């Protein structure tokens, strides 16, 4: 059963909202970075090496 009576109640968390939400928000950002960082590096790698390789093939 949902523990809070209203949305405002849920955000306030009985006066502990600041602690709970900041902990969740910072953790979410850190976890998102963990996923995004390898995805971005992979994309960059494929673009760079793929571009090089295409130039080499064009020259041959």
């Amino acid at each position, binding site marked *: *059963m*949902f*523990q*809070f009576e209203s949305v405002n109640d*849920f955000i306030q*968390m*009985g*006066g*502990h*909202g600041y*602690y*709970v939400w*900041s*902990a*969740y928000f*910072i*953790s979410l950002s*850190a*976890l998102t*970075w*963990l*996923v995004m*960082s*390898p*995805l971005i*590096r*992979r994309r960059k*790698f*494929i*673009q*760079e*090496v*793929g*571009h090089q*390789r*295409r130039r080499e093939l064009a020259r041959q």
Partner: protein
Amino acid sequence: MWQWFHRLGSPRWFYQASGKWLPWLSLLAAVFLCVGVVWGLGFAPQDAKQGNSFRIIYIHVPASFLALAGYYVMAFAGAVGLIWKMKLADMVMKSAAPIGAVLTFIALLTGAIWGKPTWGTYWIWDARITSMLVLFFLYLGVIALQHSYSSQDSASKASAVLSLVGMVNIPIIYKSVDWWYTLHQPATIKFTEAPSMHPDMFQPLLVMILGFYCFYAVVLILTTRVEILHRERRTRWVQDLVLEAPDNSNSGKI
């Protein structure tokens, strides 16, 4: 058995096989984490003494679990790389270090935030917290070593040795709450006994722990795959693989 071992050690085989595991693992991680967060934040009953600030447990405990499990993964991969000269193990070790560091950081930070309303202070030099800080520095040490050698082989050896020596810290972390009984509470979950929590609070925690395990596997695989591409960039299969993607490197330029 040995054939399997050699195949698993082949970066190319791992790259291709892990590509098939990733969608399923990601789906599992997403489902567990979403269910766990909603359950933990909205539906688990509040703690009689701590009120709602106890909901931080649903991140703090899983992150701490994985910070420790990640250290085992890193040290074990380091040992395999050192003993059998398995290249893939070296790559896994290198990839595990930043992930472990971030998870340890989350564990320390959520612990600090939780400490304020519960203990009245963000930080205290308690044995458990201090040994977790040492774990954080061990991860940072491995990351630093990886970048301080021009030869990848020397970097792998040095960081494998550091992570193995750092294993001394692991039993200290586990036992710290029993040996020096200060502020940090003893373990909530033990394999030998029933958990000291009400099932309504414990079930979402279990879901979150499972979610963090799946999440860890996904991120470790993603990071290792990028490392494989970088180290195998001169091989035929990587050179063919990069051609499959469309060439966007000139987009935005005239």
